[in-house]
């Protein structure tokens, strides 16, 4: 019953432009998400490439990632709001902290999973390290990197709802307002809108993930068919090729 009423709330075109202004809240959700994802990509991609290419620093990266994952987002946001002020900066900080671990995991797992002999062949052909990264490792790792991006984006979009508590619009406003006034139709509508938006974005990124897969390489990993482990990181690499995506998706 509530679900039907919630759907009616969403399908009422008037609600998109006036009253709850769904269109405006969608814009708020998308813009803060886009900015946060962009910052995550800028920070996590180079670090992930460095870890994946050199095989060093993985332990530290995992440790730091797990620490940021353990932070309670709403609590951290409340503290930052009181320290910094009621504006977009604290919101972006918590979303970026939340988004970095899956992106980082996707990038380094992707780079690590590139077959060692492929890299050796590239080096034997006279490619510089930069060329190896740019022309061999990144293209082969692309599906896993986009996988990390997917996980990050999903987390960030879903978590923008907590920012609604602090003078930020977004779909979370319907959840909070609904809860405060026992208006469960509005709450359900908010939940449906966030879920639908997440599924839509995830679907789009899934298509991108297929498109970036290089031809001749199995889709679910750069070279999972190859039994040969990379010498310098053989143990950790084995787990990385089995579940780099899940690792990013877990939280």
């Amino acid at each position, binding site marked *: 019953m509530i679900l039907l009423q919630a759907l009616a709330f969403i399908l009422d075109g008037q609600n998109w432009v006036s009253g709850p202004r769904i269109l405006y809240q969608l814009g708020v959700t998308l813009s803060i998400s886009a900015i946060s994802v962009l910052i995550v990509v800028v920070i996590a991609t180079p670090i992930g490439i460095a870890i994946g290419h050199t095989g060093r620093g993985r332990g530290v990266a995992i440790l730091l990632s797990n620490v940021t994952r353990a932070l309670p987002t709403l609590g951290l946001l409340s503290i930052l709001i009181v320290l910094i*002020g*009621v*504006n977009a900066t604290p919101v972006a900080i918590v979303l970026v902290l939340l988004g970095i671990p899956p992106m980082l995991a996707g990038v380094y797992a992707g780079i690590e999973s590139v077959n060692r002999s492929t890299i050796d062949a590239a080096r034997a052909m006279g490619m510089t390290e930069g060329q190896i990264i740019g022309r061999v490792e990144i293209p082969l790792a692309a599906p896993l990197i986009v996988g990390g991006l997917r996980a990050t984006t999903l987390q960030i979009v879903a978590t923008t709802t907590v920012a609604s508590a602090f003078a930020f619009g977004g779909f979370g406003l319907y959840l*909070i*307002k609904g809860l*405060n006034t026992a208006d469960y139709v509005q709450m359900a509508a908010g939940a449906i809108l966030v879920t639908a938006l997440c599924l839509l974005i995830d679907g789009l990124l899934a298509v991108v993930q297929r498109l970036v897969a290089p031809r001749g390489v199995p889709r679910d990993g750069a070279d999972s068919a190859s039994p040969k482990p990379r010498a310098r990181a053989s143990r950790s690499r084995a787990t990385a090729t089995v579940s780099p995506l899940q690792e990013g998706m877990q939280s």
Partner: protein
Amino acid sequence: MKRIHPRLLAAVAVTAAAGLALAGCSSSSSLGGGSGGGSGAGSITVGSAAFPENVTLAYAYGEALAAKGVTVTYKVNIGQRAAYFPALQKGEIDLIPEYAGSILSFLNKNANQKSGDEVASALDDALPKKLTALDLAPGADADSLNVTSEFSDTNKVTSIADLSKLGSVTLTANPEFETRPDGIPGLKSVYGLSNIQFQAINDSGGPATLKALLDGTVQVADIYSTTPSILDNKLVTLEDPKNLFASQQIVPILTASKAKGDVADTVNAVSKKITTKTLLQWNKRTGGDEKADPKTVATDWLKQNGFTK
């Protein structure tokens, strides 16, 4: 593997410490009721909702009655209205401190009375026969619009009506304020204010609201009138001459059969002394650095006001 792994040990220690800390939070000394107490004319069970201000009120009424020789039993911290009101109706509690406007709208969703007197007489009609409301205290814990003292001085604003003289003004409150009849729509219809920009901060006038007000992100903030931060930061509470907000004066609700003679007189005498400032000072003691026990705060106050020795 006889040795316990040090990391495991550390994890267990941290978990145990966290558990203890949580347990410590929940075992406040004011929890739980007193003992004994029959249901004769000379005995009363005092209840309260689960927040310090209401608990302090319960002890203030209860201890004043005890000083008059009434046998008082306490059942404080009983959750929300939906939990304690049935207990009141069943006679498990005989007295509970209430807030006039809130209890009225709980009993009658369509009530639109605003001023204290109107709310009080509507409350008499709305209460079940077994219950009665005694005199309203002057003090109230209601929505109140606050500005900084600098803002008040610079713009000569002391009342909600004065806001109309200004250009665009940003106001913060909980999200539902935007659509509540006594929220933004009320500011428009009652005071004719169309220059209010709304920003929702969902902490009921807590630290984030205060931060936004003090750093100028917003100029007006909805903070409950008995929140200590109003005193601490010398905020100016805007007057509400047209009663946008319904009166939330303190009103003790009693079992009608017990609200007679000495009991009624004592309760009314206590109510008379409870001002909004009294509530603010209580909340400052129970919620501030002192973390005082509500019963101690109530006892001290009764002594200062000559109810007890």
